[in-house]
Structures are given as C-alpha cells and as structure tokens.
C-alpha cells in the first residue's frame, strides 16, 4: 500500500494523542485511587495502622488475613469476649490488616514492608488462613499487581524477581503495576465499569467464573505442596519477640490441615489454633462459601477470643513485654 499523503509527523501526533489519553487516565486513577474501593483504601492505610499500633499502649495484637478476617473478626464482640476471659481491653491494642484475596505471599511482603524496625513488630500476631493460603501457590495476576503497587518498593525488585515473580509475564505485570496505578487497578476498574453498564453483571460474571474454575487453566499449584513462603515469613518475624498464632478459619466446605504445615509451625515456634469447626457456625452462617455473615462473625469472634485468651494472658501477665 502506498500512502502518498503519509506524514511521519502526523503519525507521531496520533501516537502522542493516544498516549496522552492514557496518561490522563493514569492521572485520574492516581487521584481516585484511595476512593477506588474499601479494600484499596484499607491497603493504603496499612502503614498508618501499623504506626498507630506501634505507638499505642499495652500489648500490641495484630490480626493479619484477608477478606475472611475482615468479615469474620468482629472487634465489637472480640474485645468484650476477651475481657470476659480475663484479658482487659485497656491492656491490649489491636490492629487489623486484611487485604482482600491475599495469602502468604502478600502477608510476607506486607510484613517486610511495614515491620522493618524491631520496635515496630507486634507482640502477638494472629494470622488467619484457610485452605491453601499458606502454601506456595503460583501468584495470580491480581496478586502480582497488588504486591507491586502496595507492598514492595523498587529496592525489593531483585529479591521479588528471584524468589517469587520468576517468569517474564509475572515480571512484566509487576513492573507495569509499579509504574502505572491504572494498570495495577485494572481489574477493579473493569469490574466497576461493567457493573455500571451491564445488566445482571454480577450474576453473569459468577456464571462465567464457575465455568472457568472447572475448565480453564488457572495459575496452578506446584505439583508438590510446599511452604517456602511460610518459612520465609516465619524467619522474617522474630519469633523470639513475637508470638505468632495461626488460626484455621471455618469455611462452608471443610478442608484438611496438612501435617507438614503443623510440623513447620511447631519447628518454627508458632502456634496453631484450629477453628474450622465452631459450635453454632452452620452452612447458613456463610454469605458464600468463604465469608461469614454478621451473625456468624459474632459466633466466630467469641470462639476466637476463647482460644486466644490463654496466649494473650501468658503474654500480658506472666512475663514483662520485651523492650518495655
């Protein structure tokens, strides 16, 4: 084809206009980012949560988890329930960190990114998990973007690329998400826009996702179940100074706790509380297969308080808190 009227300068203008549109959207996204969703505003608030906890009086208790923690741990129930068990509310300061859809990969980097200084570490950390949250699972694209945007800095790139994001596709997604907020939040924007424009969008998407889960190749688990990220996480946390308690949360469908997981936690000096089966939590107590209803959260929080209380009393009343 001979474009006799072709002008290279005009072509550059066209490209510049296209890129200008993208940059305008990027600028808008950076301005809108804190308001994009409850989850994003929570993630952006994590440094303040950690800072408030570090400055607070009393024993520092950090809950680390994902949306199952957000839905399952009701502080208005937990604190009075702990008080009933002998843990006074004034003796305890609580922080909750629960990025949606996060797992050990996110928690590892959240911890590394926010708890660099020894004095910033909590006294007790309760990590709530379910199913494969603690296993080495191939990172999904949303997770890569989240870690890039919120939980790592540029200095972390060599470590991230050598240990967790090892393929070109993962690294490409990571770098784009590091540079562009709009790329990092593309799924949220997509879901928001489609939910506004498409009738019955959530139902339709759920139906499509169910088919995908059955037939589509999602990021696959490694053939052999491994816990290298969990081991890195535990080595990151100074378990001599921080009591780490892992809590297996209830789901509608029960799951097995791997004996190897128990072994690792025991060797590393971490505690394990199994709350998969809580009296009063029935299948009706779940909004979906994963998240508790408010009523279910009440039951769960009471049960959690009952199980946590002995560890907290040991920390609070049997020995002086370290560094104080």
């Amino acid at each position: 084809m001979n474009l006799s009227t072709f002008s290279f300068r005009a072509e550059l203008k066209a490209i510049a206009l296209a890129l200008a549109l993208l940059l305008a959207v990027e600028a808008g996204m950076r301005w809108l980012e804190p308001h994009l969703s409850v989850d994003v505003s929570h993630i952006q608030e994590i440094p303040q949560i950690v800072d408030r906890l570090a400055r607070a009086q009393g024993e520092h208790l950090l809950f680390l988890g994902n949306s199952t923690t957000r839905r399952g741990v009701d502080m208005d129930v937990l604190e009075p329930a702990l008080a009933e068990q002998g843990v006074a509310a004034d003796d305890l300061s609580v922080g909750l960190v629960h990025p949606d859809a996060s797992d050990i990969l996110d928690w590892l980097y959240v911890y590394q990114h926010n708890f660099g200084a020894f004095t910033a570490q909590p006294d007790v950390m309760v990590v709530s998990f379910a199913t494969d949250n603690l296993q080495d699972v191939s990172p999904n694209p949303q997770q890569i973007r989240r870690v890039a945007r919120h939980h790592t800095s540029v200095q972390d790139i060599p470590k991230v690329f050598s240990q967790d994001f090892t393929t070109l596709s993962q690294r490409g997604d990571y770098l784009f998400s590091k540079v562009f907020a709009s790329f990092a939040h593309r799924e949220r924007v997509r879901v928001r826009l489609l939910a506004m424009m498409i009738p019955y969008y959530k139902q339709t998407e759920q139906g499509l996702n169910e088919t995908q889960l059955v037939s589509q190749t999602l990021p696959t688990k490694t053939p052999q179940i491994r816990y290298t990220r969990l081991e890195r996480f535990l080595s990151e946390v100074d378990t001599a100074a921080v009591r780490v308690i892992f809590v297996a949360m209830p789901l509608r469908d029960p799951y097995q706790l791997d004996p190897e997981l128990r072994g690792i936690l025991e060797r590393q000096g971490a505690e394990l509380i199994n709350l998969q089966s809580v009296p009063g939590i029935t299948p009706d107590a779940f909004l979906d297969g994963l998240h508790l209803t408010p009523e279910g959260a009440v039951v769960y929080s009471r049960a959690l308080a009952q199980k946590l209380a002995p560890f907290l009393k040991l920390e609070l009343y049997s020995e002086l808190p370290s560094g104080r």
Partner: protein
Amino acid sequence: MGVWVLFNSYTFWIFFLLVFALYSLSRRNFRLQNAVLLVASYAFYGAWDWRFLSLLLLSTVIDFSLARAIEATENARRRKTLLLASMCTSLGILGFFKYFGFFTESFAELMNAFGVQSSLPVLTILLPVGISFYTFQTMSYTIDVYRRELPATKKFFDFALFVSFFPQLVAGPIERASKLLPQVLHPRPQNRSNFAEGLHLVLLGLFKKVVIADNMAPIVNSVFSRDVSSLSGPEVLIGVYAFAFQIYGDFAGYTDVARGVAKWLGFDLMLNFRMPYFAASPSDFWARWHISLSSWLRDYLYIPLGGNRRGTLLTYRNLMITMLLGGLWHGAAWTFIAWGFFHGLILCLYRPFEKLSATTQPRPVVRSGPFVPGRLLSILIMFHLTCIGWLFFRAESVTQVWEMVQRFGNLQLTPFALGAGALIAFYVLPLLLYEGWLERRGDVAALLKTHWWARGLVYGYCILMLWFFPALGHYEFIYFQF
C-alpha cells in the same frame, strides 16, 4: 505452547525487539537481513517444540528440490510425476499428523456398526503447530512452478525463509510464492509509511484478540460446556454470537498482528480478512473470510476441478468438494466436515439468486454502504447463516448441534442471556461500527488516510481497552489447533 509464539505475550515482543534491532543493524545487506530472519523464524518455531523443526526443514528441502527438478525438465510426464511427489509428501505429512487418528477411529466406528471388530493401531500424535499453513504454502509454490507461473528459486536459504517466515508461519496468511518470494529475494526498500501501517495493524490486531476474542471465550465456554437441556434459546444464540466474534477476533487479530509485524520488517503480507460479517452472500463471505485459504482452494482445487465452466451440476459438485475439503482442512472431526458441507450447501443455494442479480441489476455507480435497508437485511441474513455454520464448528459433536438447535423453542430471556448479550454488545459494537465505516469507505486502510486526531482517538480507545479490559483468563489462539 511456547510463549514466543503468542503475539499477546511479553516474551514475543522482547523477541521481536531483538530481531528488529539485529535486522535494522543489517539494513545495508539484505542477505544478512534474511539470515537474521531465518534464524529468528526457526528459533520462533523451535520455542514451541524443537523436535518439529526437522519436519519444517524436511518439507522445505523436499519442495525446494522438487520444484527445481520440475523446472529443469521439459518432459510433461516427468514434471507431473515430480509435482505429484511434492503433493503426496506435503499431504502425506499433513495427513499423518492431522488425520491419521480421525480416520482410524472413524473406520473403527464404521466397522463396529457392522459388528466387525477392527484392530487398527491407536496413536496419540501431537499436531505440529502451523502444519496446515506451511504445507499449503509450499504446495502452492511447487504447483506455481509446475504451471510455469513462477520460476523455481535457486536460493535454498531464501526459500527456507519464505516457508518459515515467523510472523505468518503458525497461523497464516497462507502466502503465495509469487507475492512473498520476490520480497525475500530482493532488497526491501524502506517505506516511511511502513511504521504507520504496521502500528495500525498491530494495535487493531491485539484489540481483536485480547479484548474481543478473549472476552468472548468465557461466554462461549459457558454455553457450550453446560448441559444443553439447561440452556434457553436466547442463551444458545448468545453462545453462537459470542463464538462468531471469538473466532473472528482470534484469527483476524492474529493475522493483523502478523501483517503489522511483517510490515515493520518491510514485508507486505496479503489481506486475510475484509470485514467478513458485512458479507451479503456466501460467495461474498468467502471473498472476505480467511481470504488466503479461500483463494488457495479456488486456485488449486475449485478451478482445476472445472470451476463453474462445465455446467450447473458440475459447478455444484465442485463447490461441495471444495468446501468439504476446506472444512476438513480445519480439523479432523465430523463437525468441521459438517461445517464445510453447510457452507457448500448455501453457496449452491445462493448461486441462482446471485446469477439473477448480476444479470438484472445495473452495476451500482456509487458504492452503497452497509446501512442501506436492503443490503442491511442481506448482511443480517448472511451473518445468521454464518452463525449456523459456527454452531457446527464449535460444537463438540453433531448431536450437540442438533440438541442446541432444539433449544430455540425455549424463548426464556434469562439474566445470563441479558448479561452476556450486553457484554457482547459492549465489546463488539465499537468494532462493528468501525468496520461498518470501513465498508462504507470501501477501504480497509481508511483510518490511515484520516486526520491524525481521529487516528489518535481510535488508537487511544484500543490502548485503553487493552489496558483495562483484557480477559481475566488465558486463552490460546483457536487457529493454532489447525
């Protein structure tokens, strides 16, 4: 699947940047450029499975040698024998890798139907990617040499590049030697518009694949994997519509990117799709869809069979044979044959009306756009006939086709049908409007001739859609399985 092969992967673009850099550094020596491209093409193909490089090389060596032997002799019988040897080799390779299992299974089923146990060997054969494309490409070369339409090249490595040129190796277009070989054999002048044309093709190609095709895939998979009795008529229709745009976006997207990448390297590959869903008749459709294959079948099968020169019945026979084999080319399954049969049938059924229209209506002085009422109706009818064909193409079996057709009696408009239908409209309507405009202008490259700001807005839209609306899952290119 080797990720280099996927145009929508980081790996491919890093690969291409390296190749382009080396290619540009070699610009003073086109032989060196060809060497760079040949090595890159073999590396590209080997990234999928290095073991099948030998097959690609074998096909290249055989057809290069046989073409030279054909040209070297004036003996008609010997020329024909050599041509047959070339065709048997190419079709033999294709037949073994693609059809052996299908024919043995079908034969065994036939024997079982007569109560005879068959003990034919069962082999699990991996289909080499692109084999249908490059075997047809090399066959067209030897046929053209035989017909004396093209001289046989003496340059083996240039011929090897013609066969293995990586942008079009695995999913076409099926290039004619008369068009691509001269570009390989001679220096390629730097044309300043190559960059613009390449960019236009690459952006639109990625849009078609990543935004359209990959977002249609979950809808298609959802409809075609469900128990048919649970589907309503509108849901079946939505599934078929989604597949129509999935296969178009997938295939046209891939070839657009292939043409764009080739353009950046200074090569001009043939147009393979020309707004196919604006076709007003079956023959019009086949002048717009997978043009490289349909023209190959026309020139090397339909016309040698006699074309339309031997009366009506033989014309119908030739059309049916051509379309049946065209269906079989796509894959070793009865559904593909049924699809080919269906297209042959509608070609035959439309033929009297097209002949009547050609003799009774004056040639239009002014090109009418797609939105003229009479033409719009023809386009809509043809689109839906095409969709019936796609139902055969996508279904797991002919039984499933029949079961899905029966569901049209259930007119329940479910939330899924409404939601999925709206999703299809969201992704596809802008493309259809754009292609309607191209159809009105009668020029597939009309965007390149508009004002820069119009082009900038279209490119901006494509980039933003690629940015925010890639599908959440990963989907292979459909035509890689052919």
